[in-house]
């Protein structure tokens, strides 16, 4: 067995205790759970280009505190089925299908990045199904290009549009590029520059498959950063003030490529009554990966306070 075929371990990382499948409008979603099957359930959503394996350190901390952590790979991500089409609406439907598989009672919603925005949508659409909310650096608030001139922005948008269409033309038969564990870790490191090589190598072993010619990330190769569409970040933020359950937001203040650059001042005016924001300096977008113990403790404190009726 070559070094590449060996399981890479990471301190504190634990694979889920159970795996199951949920069919959402015909697409098979990989759902996984950490913790006792009889424990109190919560719903945990990952971000774009991530997968449930990125919770392998964070989720066990919640599970060990008495929670049944239910998470899923979004369509086209991780071990969930690839689809012909991807949109926000289909991701919301998939999230609702996973929620339905837990049961009809309200549960805590926790989401990171795009997953945070996703469960924010879900909490607005199904307010009777959420008991409390935690958003981990998933509150988009501003245009990514707000500091470029109009002319420059128009040029960039047009470039995005044509390069996206060129990408669509090139998709038939496309596969992800194979490589060694180190090569895939290095590639992902460009999107996750604050992550250690040790962690990135671990992610390869849970988020990629090993074919004869090397490792390939499982994510659908049709997915790509920098698409185009009418969506504006503030539309997501406007779903925050109306949340009617206890809310905790956690922001990482270090700006990085996958983050939104949202500042506390962007969030505070939009907090729902009684909502709380924790801004962590020296921490990037992946707050739960950089500081799992600290963030898990914040989350557990919020969940306990909700359960005790201390938050209204």
């Amino acid at each position, binding site marked *: 067995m070559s070094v590449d075929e060996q399981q890479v371990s990471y301190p504190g990382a634990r694979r889920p205790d159970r795996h199951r499948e949920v069919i*959402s*409008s*015909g*697409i098979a979603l990989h759902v996984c759970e950490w913790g006792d099957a009889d424990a109190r359930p919560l719903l945990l959503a990952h971000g774009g280009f991530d997968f449930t394996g990125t919770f392998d350190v964070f989720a066990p901390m919640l599970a060990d505190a008495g929670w049944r952590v239910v998470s899923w790979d979004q*369509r086209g991500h991780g071990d969930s089925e690839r*689809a*012909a*089409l*991807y*949109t926000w*609406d*289909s991701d*919301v*439907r998939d999230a*609702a299908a996973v929620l339905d598989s837990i049961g009809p009672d309200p549960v805590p919603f926790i989401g990171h990045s795009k997953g945070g925005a996703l469960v924010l*949508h*879900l909490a*607005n*659409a*199904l307010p009777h199904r959420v008991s409390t909310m935690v958003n981990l650096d998933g509150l988009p608030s501003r245009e990514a290009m707000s500091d470029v001139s109009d002319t420059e922005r*128009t040029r960039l*948008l*047009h470039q995005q*549009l*044509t390069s*996206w*269409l060129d990408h*669509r*033309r090139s*998709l*038939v038969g496309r596969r992800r590029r194979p490589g060694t564990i180190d090569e895939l870790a290095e590639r992902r490191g460009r999107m996750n520059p604050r992550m250690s090589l040790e962690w990135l190598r671990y992610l390869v072993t849970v988020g990629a498959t090993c074919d004869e010619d090397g490792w390939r990330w499982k994510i659908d190769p*049709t997915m790509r950063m920098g*698409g*185009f*569409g*009418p*969506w*504006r970040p503030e*539309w997501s933020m406007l*779903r925050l003030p109306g949340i009617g359950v206890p809310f905790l937001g956690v922001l990482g203040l270090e700006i990085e490529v996958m983050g939104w650059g949202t500042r506390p001042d962007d969030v505070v005016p939009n907090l729902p009554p009684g909502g709380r924001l924790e801004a962590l300096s020296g921490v990037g977008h992946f707050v739960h990966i950089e500081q799992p113990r600290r963030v898990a403790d914040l989350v557990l404190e919020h969940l306990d306070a909700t359960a005790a009726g201390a938050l209204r």
Partner: protein
Amino acid sequence: MSEVTYLRHNLVELALHRLRGADPAAGESRPLLLLHGLGERTPDVVPGVVDWPGPVHGLDFTGHGSSTLPVGGGYSAEILVGDVDAALAVLGPVTLMARGLGAYIALLAAAARPELVRGAVLADGPGLVGGGVHPGSPTLPYPPASPPGPPDPFALAELSRDPRPADYAQTFVRFVLEGSDLELPLWVAAVVRPEWLAAVAAEPGIGEGSIEDGLAHYLDVT
């Protein structure tokens, strides 16, 4: 009887219908590509309103007509622009005659490929309005309980509620105006004017009038 060829867009097979070849008397003229509205499909024969001497083709969008009906929904206007782009890759320069949802798609396609879209007539039809300029209250976008299609019930649900902000449409009009050498690269024939289309029509350098006049205008364009 129309001739059908199938084009690949990622996992989807798109039906491209040739409704009519070129009129031999007309010499060499540019093809016209029909884009249907939401829930429609390419018609069996060239519609009466279309007076065009060149070849006439029609594209069935993903989930419509004879094109693949994908599993699990997930439609966006942007993805359908990729459908049109697949047809442009095969047909080369065309004039677009687009109804309803197809008119919105035609705007985006003309912006992306101004050298291949030699004029687009934007006409009334199903799916012209979309979901307005803002997203509505967040809901679960389930499809209507209807037969499995085509048209795909997910397409009917998702493409009748997608936000189409006026300034978003304006950005694309400006791409068209900058990228195209035509005097009037877009022609608004629709009577119904949702915000996005009113914004298009308000830009300088946009033609307005009947479908017939629009097609006649583009006939004279080389």
